[in-house]
């Protein structure tokens, strides 16, 4: 039982009580798993990640984290909340929301500082991490003056520096160039091989196979439409088409227009 990290049972959630965002969700996540969440825009991926991060709570059903039911009140308890925040880290979909300090440096060290890490430790991690992500030069800039891709790298750094056991990433590679995407994937796989649990939401089908063993497909009805091993799901073209995850390419061969669905399972 000990290695179950998250357990969602019949979870429903709607924003402001009227905009449904999750419907009858049942998910069990074990320690060390690599999971992808895919689905069309507005299917509830971000909402799920926010719930796993203890920022919102089910209207109906329960969520258990580390074997204990997660309720809003628990996170008001300083001790519990500190432990939880140390073990679970979320990279938000919108880096502008995640970055709120005047400089990149302050932003990256914000998490460990709040969580009471030692100064020497923070400095050391900061140096290593920024070197790895290639953002050392940006440390004294304001986050709001960076390019979108740079912001995303900084946002990823602000979460990674906490060193959480469970990493939640909301479209971490959107807007990144191929080389940086590669770095992020390598980083995630490194983290995974050291035993961390990785849960990623993405539209980027060609990274799904590398960053996940299990894939959940969310439908526009905010339910889980399908789940299975990543190779299984990626082969199911009809399923992917149904959920806006592949697009149709039209080619012209001589005079005949030839149309076929097109998956982004590899680079071209």
């Amino acid at each position, binding site marked *: 039982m000990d290695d179950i990290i998250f357990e969602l049972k019949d979870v429903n959630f709607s924003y402001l009580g009227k905009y449904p965002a999750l419907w009858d969700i049942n998910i069990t996540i074990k320690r060390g798993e690599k999971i992808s969440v895919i689905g069309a825009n507005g299917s509830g991926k971000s909402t799920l990640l926010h719930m796993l991060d203890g920022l919102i709570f089910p209207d109906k059903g329960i969520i258990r984290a580390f074997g204990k039911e997660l309720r809003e009140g628990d996170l008001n308890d300083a001790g519990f909340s500190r432990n939880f925040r140390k073990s679970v*880290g979320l990279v938000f979909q919108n880096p502008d929301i*995640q970055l709120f*300090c005047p400089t990149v440096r302050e932003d990256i060290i914000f*998490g460990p*500082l709040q969580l009471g890490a030692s*100064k020497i430790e923070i400095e050391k991690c900061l140096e290593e991490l920024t070197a790895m992500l290639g953002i050392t030069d940006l440390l004294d800039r*304001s986050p709001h003056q960076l390019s979108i891709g740079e912001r995303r790298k900084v946002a990823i750094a602000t979460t990674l520096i906490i060193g959480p056991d469970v990493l939640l990433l909301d479209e971490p590679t959107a807007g990144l160039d191929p080389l940086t995407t590669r770095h992020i994937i390598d980083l995630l796989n490194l983290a995974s091989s050291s035993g961390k649990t990785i849960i990623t939401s993405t539209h980027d089908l060609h990274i799904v196979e590398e960053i996940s063993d299990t894939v959940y497909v969310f439908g526009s009805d905010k339910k889980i439409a399908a789940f299975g091993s990543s190779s299984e799901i990626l082969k199911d073209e009809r399923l992917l088409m149904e959920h806006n995850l592949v697009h149709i390419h039209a080619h012209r061969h001589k005079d005949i227009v030839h149309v076929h669905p097109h998956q982004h399972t590899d680079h071209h």
Partner: protein
Amino acid sequence: MFKKSNFIERSLTGALSFIKGSIFAEGYASRIGFLQSLDPRIKAATFLLFLLQILFTKNILVLLYLYALCLMLAQVSRIDLLFFLKRTWVFIPLFSLFIAIPALFSIFTPGDPLVSFSLIGHKLTITHQGLSGAELFVTRVITSVSFVVLLSITTKHFELLKVLRIFKIPQVFVMTLGMCYRYIYLFAEIIEDTYLAIKSRVGTLVHYKRGQHLVAWNIAYLWHRSYQLNEEVYKAMLSRGYAGEPAVLTDFRFKPKDLVWFIFAAIMFTAMRKYG
């Protein structure tokens, strides 16, 4: 004509980015200068003394002296003087309009007449007492505003919040203050972005009426949007372990320099209380 049509929008976004620039000039806080090198606790405490002095005194010379001190401090803290003057004097018209100018006249401040003139059939008289009162008022406002702006631009945001906590200001209050601060920032930022977005969509050839309409629509929408964003940002802070108690990297440490500065400020405070 098109110049005119964009006037409201331009002045609106101009004012906002100006306010943003004055309150959020965080770049100055990381410069190497005198005030930046002081212990934030000492700095805040001495500035509080100055502000008290400014409130108590009725002597314009004391105010002028304090104002000169403030400008000098800005200078040794490597703050661009022109920037500083612009950012602080911008508040004056606002206050003057409502308090200082009415106070000039005999209706509000009775006394010996200085000049009289009639305006739409009413005889208006500016009194000596009114004039010196207004002078005192403007000097008081500009001096206190300058000290507050100087403190806020030479201290990092989270350090300032932490100092408030050290001064035993309740956590709820400090947290709310921090949120307001970010809220204003987001609001200013969104307005700027939206203005750009509108411009790119409809071009600069916005008709006068339509321009007005857009602005009116913006304000309501923007308050809402920045409020929502502020909540999201708060979530992001929670996610990284923020529990309402700001933590900062640099330890607050008293240095001999802080002691010297504190003694200087304390002596000045007592001297001015006595002779001012």
